[in-house]
């Protein structure tokens, strides 16, 4: 939707200007990276990654095309080879997302989301404030259970419906729920693609998320709900009045019906139990870390596709967002090239030089950098680039709190601008379509930046207080045996002269992740 608008919204002149700017800046950054001591392949990898960042800024609709070309350039210049491309593409993460998308499709079919929406509307003695609060919390928890985009699509539909009945502008309530959805997406691995990516990179289990990320998310969520409801207090009063007036006239918000929900609840429950118990199952079956976690949605999706075989093809063809997943896959591969060629080693070295090893400094720096970066660039892009740097840092400092800082920065930073997360873009697209109203960049920035700052401060405070209690994870990096093709990789360009990477004494090949 937003993509189509952008595709048609750019004139030929604008397109050429942006393209020249993208090429100029990317090549410029590539050359400039020489100043940091990078060799040719590292420069190419840096330039290509930078073009991906600019591509998602300038050409949101063409980001996949730019990723295709980027991979092409990396392979042709021998900055990346095919085995490492396949390895770095994080196929298990992609398949995890495919499985979750199929499960979400089945949940929709089976009435789970209808039941949730109907449940919210049918709350007894509902008032305007209660409704907004419940909706905001539901959007966050739903994001935890499925994902932020799915959550906001369903919650936004509910808001449009209610606002239409009450003849209210849905904009403030949509903003409240989007902000809460982004906060909620940090609660579990399923909330956001960066969650599962960080989880696999850091070696976090589902339990780790529930134990460390979920409570921080809940406190941040409470603060975000309170702040946004105070910010839009006039709109809350109006909502309250209109709803009361309607209820006094014995008019409902929607027809009262009994939605069958048991089958959908069973599907969701089964999936969550599978995911939640992955650690125990891996131990029981002697499997590698997170292997059960990554295949759990695939197993559930497989069962669903057998039971609902008449809809199986529909789920795979229509419920899976292949466009986005392909982009993620190529993005991970391009980001992996930074690691493969030793760029991240150079960056980590400089990072340590500037900020040192003190976690009291590193946590807020990483969180702030990621939050600001995620405000303007797809947070997956930013996290994919930052993850190898944190892995490098993990050689000398305890990395666990840094991974959490990366997660919270990426998720909460999405609230800063209206293009900060996919959920924002989707919700604003729906808003424009439904009520023909747009949100101005500055209007969003005021409440978005404020709520993001508040949530980040809470997360920072809690991480600072808890980081000494966090057990250090034996990440897949350290556990994974050096792959058989390491010999080939060792001979790959960039690995033998990893420049600044050697400042903390690392061979970039050795720490490649096998997820």
């Amino acid at each position, binding site marked *: 939707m937003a993509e189509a608008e952008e595709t048609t919204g750019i004139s030929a002149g604008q397109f050429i200007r942006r393209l020249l700017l993208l090429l100029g800046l990317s090549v410029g950054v590539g050359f400039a990276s020489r100043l940091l001591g990078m060799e040719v392949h590292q420069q190419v990898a840096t330039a290509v990654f930078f073009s991906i960042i600019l591509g998602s800024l300038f050409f949101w609709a063409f980001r996949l095309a730019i990723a295709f070309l980027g991979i092409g350039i990396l392979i042709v210049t021998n900055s990346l080879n095919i085995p490492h491309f396949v390895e770095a593409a994080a196929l298990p993460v992609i398949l995890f997302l495919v499985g979750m998308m199929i499960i979400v499709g089945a949940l929709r079919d089976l*009435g789970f989301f*209808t039941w949730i929406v109907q449940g919210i509307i049918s709350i007894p003695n509902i008032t305007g404030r209660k409704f907004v609060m419940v909706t905001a919390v539901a959007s966050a928890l739903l994001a935890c259970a499925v994902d932020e985009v799915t959550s906001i699509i369903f919650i936004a539909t*509910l808001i449009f*419906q209610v606002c239409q009945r009450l003849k209210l502008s849905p904009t403030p309530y949509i903003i409240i729920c989007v902000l809460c959805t982004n906060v909620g997406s940090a609660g579990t691995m399923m909330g956001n693609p960066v969650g599962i990516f960080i989880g696999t990179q850091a070696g976090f289990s589902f339990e780790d998320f529930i134990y460390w990320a979920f409570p921080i998310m809940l406190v941040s969520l409470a603060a975000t709900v309170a702040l946004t409801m105070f910010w839009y207090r006039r709109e809350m009063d109006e909502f309250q009045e209109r709803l009361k007036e309607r209820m006094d006239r014995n*008019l409902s918000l929607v027809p009262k*019906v*009994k*939605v069958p929900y048991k089958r959908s609840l069973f599907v969701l429950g089964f999936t969550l139990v599978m995911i939640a118990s992955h650690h125990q199952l891996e131990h029981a079956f002697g499997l590698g870390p997170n292997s059960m976690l990554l295949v759990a949605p695939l197993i559930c999706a497989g069962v669903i596709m057998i039971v609902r075989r008449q809809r199986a093809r529909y789920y795979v063809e229509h419920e899976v967002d292949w466009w986005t997943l392909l982009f993620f896959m190529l993005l991970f591969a391009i980001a992996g090239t930074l690691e493969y060629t030793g760029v991240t080693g150079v960056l980590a070295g400089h990072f340590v030089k500037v900020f040192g090893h003190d976690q009291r400094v590193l946590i807020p720096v990483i969180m702030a950098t990621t939050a600001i970066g995620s405000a303007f660039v797809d947070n997956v892009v930013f996290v994919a680039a930052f993850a190898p740097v944190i892995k490098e840092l993990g050689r000398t400092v305890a990395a666990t709190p840094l991974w959490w800082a990366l997660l919270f920065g990426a998720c909460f930073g999405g609230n800063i601008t209206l293009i900060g997360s996919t959920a924002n873009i989707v919700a604003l697209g729906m808003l424009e*379509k439904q009520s023909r109203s747009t949100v101005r960049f500055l209007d969003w920035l005021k409440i978005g930046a404020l709520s993001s700052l508040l949530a980040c401060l809470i997360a920072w405070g809690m991480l600072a207080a808890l980081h000494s209690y966090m057990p250090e994870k034996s990440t897949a990096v350290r556990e994974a045996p050096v792959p058989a093709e390491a010999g080939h990789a060792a001979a790959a360009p960039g690995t033998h002269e990893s420049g600044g990477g050697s400042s903390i004494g690392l061979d970039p090949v050795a720490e490649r992740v096998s997820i």
Partner: protein
Amino acid sequence: MAAAAREIKVSDYLAEGNILCRMGNIPAHEAVDRLVSLLFMHVGGFDRQGAIDSVMEREQLDSTVLIEGLALPHARMDGLQQPMVAVGLSHEGVYFPENNELVRILILVLTPKSDPSAYLKLVSAISKSLSEESLRLRLGLCDTPSEAYALLTAGVRGIPAHLVARDLMNAQPVTVREEDDLATAISAFCVQRQMDIPVVDETGDIRGVLAIEDLLHLSLPEHFLWMEDLTPIVNFQPFAELLRKDHETKVADFMRDRFTTMDPETPAIQLAKDFLKSGVRQIMLAENDKLIGVVNVQNFVAQLFWA
């Protein structure tokens, strides 16, 4: 040598103002009442109630439904100077209880009692001009008196070599305003049997479009549509509340404000493609945002294939 008597034509006695379109699904006596009243208003010179009674008496003696969908109610009247003709058209059909039949075309004929042959001559002329089934079908679909008058007087014209939307459009479609209430929209959909209604403002600019599904959508919230199978929901009764507040709900509340229009000069083949590929039922034709007319798939097919 005596000059040959001039052949009588329907157009000799029919004025465009004496054609009533969209009469709806009404009983025959009401239709006759309306047509007689129309003649009385525009021509006059006869006893209105007397004419209605005479026509209905004649109808009860023997039905004047000639062929399927066409009736010629008539009466001979004292004091008439010349024959009078009025035409009534109904998409839904006027109900003739004697035949238990729905009639789409009513041609009311009043002739002077002093000229017994006038009725026969007129009936002969009407029968001749409506002998073609295609013309009767197209006449029954006419939405405007001018369209019907043109058909009755000039007959079916040939299809031009380069058929464009303007040749096929209904120039006076049913429209509603944004400020109209739900009751008006329901009436337009259900009484006038419309499927898609353009929404225009006071200057005739198109503001949106209302499809009959929008009415349904109003009572069936979006979140129910997420489910694949709604059969387990048996207690769905949304309409009572919807109707209770039909005067509060305005067309603007549920119309679609994203719509596409076409230029009246768009070739017919493009319209055909859009009907087939886009699944639209009706295409709005506009010039400078002003509604010029509509082409719906039913009229499109009728005009192309029944002509």
